[in-house]
């Protein structure tokens, strides 16, 4: 059926997200003083789900797949829709839907919630543009389109000192890394004479004396990617921003925004800087990512282990997971037979992570809503008053730790196995050791909720409401985390096929 659609229709997942954002502004214009945010939540959710539906339909129908005529390129090769872009758009749309649903209860006493919904949808639009970007210029524009709403979202609770401070820190680091990223792009352009990925790749192949300039440019681009994915060395904004931001925003940033960083990284480094040509020009970015991956996962895990606040622990754990996903780039080799397998595994891990991590942050959002407290001790005995939500949180924690029978087990296993098959046994070992260590701090949450007593006898009295929408979002994320284990086959096959198209 989609064959009859014009070519630009392949961008409809992104367009739907953008339209939903505009529709939200419209709703706010018509009823500016409306106190209930139900209408906004419905419009935002419908927009995100419509985008998700179209994306899944496109994946199933094979839009951009090699079998149906290959990737769809538009606007003089500036954008390219293929299976990989659709795969990541599915992650963005799912996370957006979960966050928008959950935010209905989180912001129900906020005076102007419309800004939150439209900013979230616009950021999601930028992410889906990042996924289709085929030129460094589009990458930069889309990256800013994600970043600017994100700064505002982090500082959304403008009377809350923590939120404002986090927003400022995020903005400063973000502005710096954007500048570095842009400078890197200009250096690469200087060395290769092109901004379109295929042109850059051709330029790298014949870079000659300009290899030094191209190399510096690539290192700077790595810096920009590291910022977006919250990896070392630009990770330090993440704990502050995630902790200070309203929890639904933390969920959005740590799941969707991180995945957006990875789609850029995967595409730019495989298509614009092909491994063979880069190594021939003495620009071994694979090694750079290998070091970054190892340091990122180790640092994230060890820092998470010493935290006393659950949200901050989750922030560091999200840095650790960025390290795992970086294996998707770090375990590549020129002409390696397992390249598509390991990158596909990293993509599948990001999808699973999108559900389990969003769910975990949304549970934190629920606890914030109740006003129970932030530390592990404050979570004591939660399972007695909120057994269903606590069970969901236990699912997220065990899945993040990579324990069977949850989807996180498979996604990590495929990732490490892919690294071993591609000859990077050391990365797999570091990943596996970190993964085992992570069980310590994840299980602390479970222990607090189920085994420990409340911090003070009356602490659980604060749980007086049952926020329906938040509950729905958390439980849905938990169900998805469990069902992605039996349903992992189609996910990993799609991801591997998508990655295979890049090599």
């Amino acid at each position, binding site marked *: 059926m989609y064959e009859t659609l014009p070519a630009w229709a392949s961008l409809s997942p992104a367009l739907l997200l953008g339209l939903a954002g505009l529709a939200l502004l419209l709703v706010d214009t018509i009823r500016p003083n409306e106190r209930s945010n139900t209408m906004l939540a419905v419009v935002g959710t419908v927009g995100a789900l419509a985008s998700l539906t179209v994306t899944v339909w496109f994946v199933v129908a094979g839009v951009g797949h090699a079998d149906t005529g290959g990737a769809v390129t538009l606007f003089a090769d500036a954008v390219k829709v293929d299976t990989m872009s659709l795969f990541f758009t599915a992650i963005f749309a799912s996370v957006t839907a979960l966050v928008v649903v959950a935010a209905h209860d989180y912001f129900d006493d906020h005076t102007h919630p419309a800004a939150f919904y439209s900013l979230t949808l616009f950021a999601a639009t930028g992410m889906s543009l990042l996924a289709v970007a085929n030129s460094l210029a589009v990458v930069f524009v889309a990256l800013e389109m994600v970043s600017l709403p994100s700064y505002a979202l982090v500082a959304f609770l403008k009377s809350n000192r923590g939120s404002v401070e986090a927003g400022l820190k995020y903005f400063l680091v973000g502005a710096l890394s954007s500048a570095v990223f842009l400078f890197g792009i200009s250096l690469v352009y200087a060395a290769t004479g092109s901004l379109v990925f295929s042109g850059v790749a051709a330029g790298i192949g014949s870079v000659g004396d300009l290899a030094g300039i191209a190399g510096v440019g690539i290192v700077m681009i790595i810096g920009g990617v590291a910022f977006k994915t919250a990896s070392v060395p630009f990770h330090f904004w993440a704990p502050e921003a995630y902790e200070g931001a309203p929890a639904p925003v933390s969920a959005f940033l740590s799941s969707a925004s991180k995945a957006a960083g990875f789609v850029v990284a995967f595409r730019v480094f495989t298509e614009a800087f092909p491994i063979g040509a880069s190594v021939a020009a003495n620009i071994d970015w694979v090694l750079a990512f290998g070091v970054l991956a190892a340091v990122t996962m180790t640092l994230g895990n060890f820092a998470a282990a010493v935290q006393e606040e659950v949200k901050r622990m989750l922030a560091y754990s999200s840095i650790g997971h960025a390290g795992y996903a970086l294996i998707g780039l770090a375990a590549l080799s020129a002409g390696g037979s397992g390249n598509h397998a390991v990158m596909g595994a990293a993509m599948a891990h990001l999808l699973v992570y999108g559900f389990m991590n969003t769910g975990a942050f949304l549970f934190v959002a629920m606890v914030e809503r109740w006003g129970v407290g932030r530390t592990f001790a404050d979570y004591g005995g939660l399972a007695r008053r909120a057994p269903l939500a606590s069970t969901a949180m236990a699912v997220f924690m065990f899945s993040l730790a990579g324990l*069977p029978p949850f989807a996180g087990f498979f996604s990590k296993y495929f990732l490490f196995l892919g690294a071993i098959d591609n000859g990077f046994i050391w990365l797999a070992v570091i990943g596996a050791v970190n993964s085992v260590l992570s069980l310590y701090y994840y299980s602390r949450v479970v222990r607090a909720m189920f*085994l420990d007593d409340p911090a003070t006898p009356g602490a659980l009295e604060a749980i007086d409401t049952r926020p329906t929408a938040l509950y729905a979002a958390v439980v849905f994320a938990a169900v998805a985390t469990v069902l992605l284990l039996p349903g992992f086959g189609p996910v990993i096959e799609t991801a591997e096929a998508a990655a295979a198209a890049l090599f």
Partner: protein
Amino acid sequence: MILEALIGFTFLAALVVLVAPDAWAGRLAAAVSLVPFAGALYAWSQFDGAGNALTGGTIAFESRVEWIEVGGRTVSWFVGLDGISLPLVVLTTFLVPLAILSAWTPIDERQSQFYGLMLFMEANLLGVFTALDFFVWFIFWEAVLVPMYFLIGIWGGPRRKYAAIKFFVYTNAASLVMFIGFTALTFALGDSVRSFGLPEITAAIAAGELSTWFGIAPGTIAMGAFLAMFAGFAVKVPVVPVHTWLPDAHVEAPTPVSVLLAGVLLKMGTYALLRYNFTMLPDQAAALAVPIATIAVISVIYGAMLALAQKDLKRIVAYSSVSSMGYVILGLVVFTEYGVGGATFQMVAHGLISGLMFMAVGVVYNATHTRMVGDMAGMADRMPITVGILVAGAFGYMGLPLMAGFAGEFFIFVGSFGAPSLPYAPVFTALAMFGIVIVAGYLLSAMQKTLFGPFRLETDYEISSAPFHDVAPLAVLLVAIIVLGVAPDLVFEMIRDATMPVVEGVSANV
């Protein structure tokens, strides 16, 4: 389909019980848990397997659906039964309803969660014993830990958190070691195996398909994998010196959980040892026969001596489990018809007997609120039926003829005494037999102090006879123990049929 129905129904029952009101969750759980038992009995009646599932025998109720592909190998939903797994499936479904009944008295808070978790654990245990694909098996294997962690950690005794976390960490670390060992094995098999099905992997290893991987010779990989898997499973069994989580877990766990822990969870370890170490890598097992037999005998003797030193009735039973599991390991390592068969039979027998002992101690504790040997005496006057069954169970533990424990231990000793593949087999057997004497010593002494003589109780509780739903499971278990003791061939026939291929695989090389 019957196995899928069995596992699926139990999962569903767990979910239903989880959301049922606390007031009648116990009754509901007891009722629905009879369905899997009936299903297992039906499977028994329709059982048409022959030989060992891993070595090319006919697998009963085999079903296989492709799931996903991992690095060129397919993972399938692959389940089936043979003469080794069917008795354990029946044992599991038989013990769970009884354990649920025995929980009615002691569990007085968050009942629906408790019974839901019990059923959830049963479903996963059934998965462990039926799965014939490594991945499916491993997922069930790990999934058993989660409900157990909560069951000990929420409803346990005063030191429950420590015990729960110790249990979780010990067994999880062990699983990881085992997982690495098995994965190395699959890597070394290279492209010769295209699936994670246990029969295919066993066949490929037997055909000598192991090849050099990362510069490590095939023999070294096989030996390393054997050691890693042995270490991993040994924690679960447990054998000395990795047994220390067991007494803590048992003492803190509530009675019904102890029943399943001793009755079924320990058997996961010996079952996996039999399947993976002794069936897949029999040459390595035969080469390591002396060290393994030494560990087994040490477990028997040291476990029994530890039990001798305890004052807590539950600790006594817990340590004697370590001792009994030592016999199972000894039976497995000798690779004779009666050794391996007897070890498998002993798994079932010990499941029943230790379940009975924990349950009986639990009933006494419900009345007296103490388990210390010195705190009570003369219980026989006040609780005649319970005490009678407890004494009978203890004699079963000591190996009284015509009870299941005698049959199991007798088979093992017969099998191990003349074992051709184990040097000094008579010496090992004689040393292990000495364990029985110690068992008799501590059980008789503990019973004489607590059950007989003039009545005395340090804790101030009125003692009356235990309620029917406490005593009924004890009686049912005792009947089962006697039936198996009188007619061991009820299950030993099929066990022998399934274990003979394992034995023949080794004796061909001796």
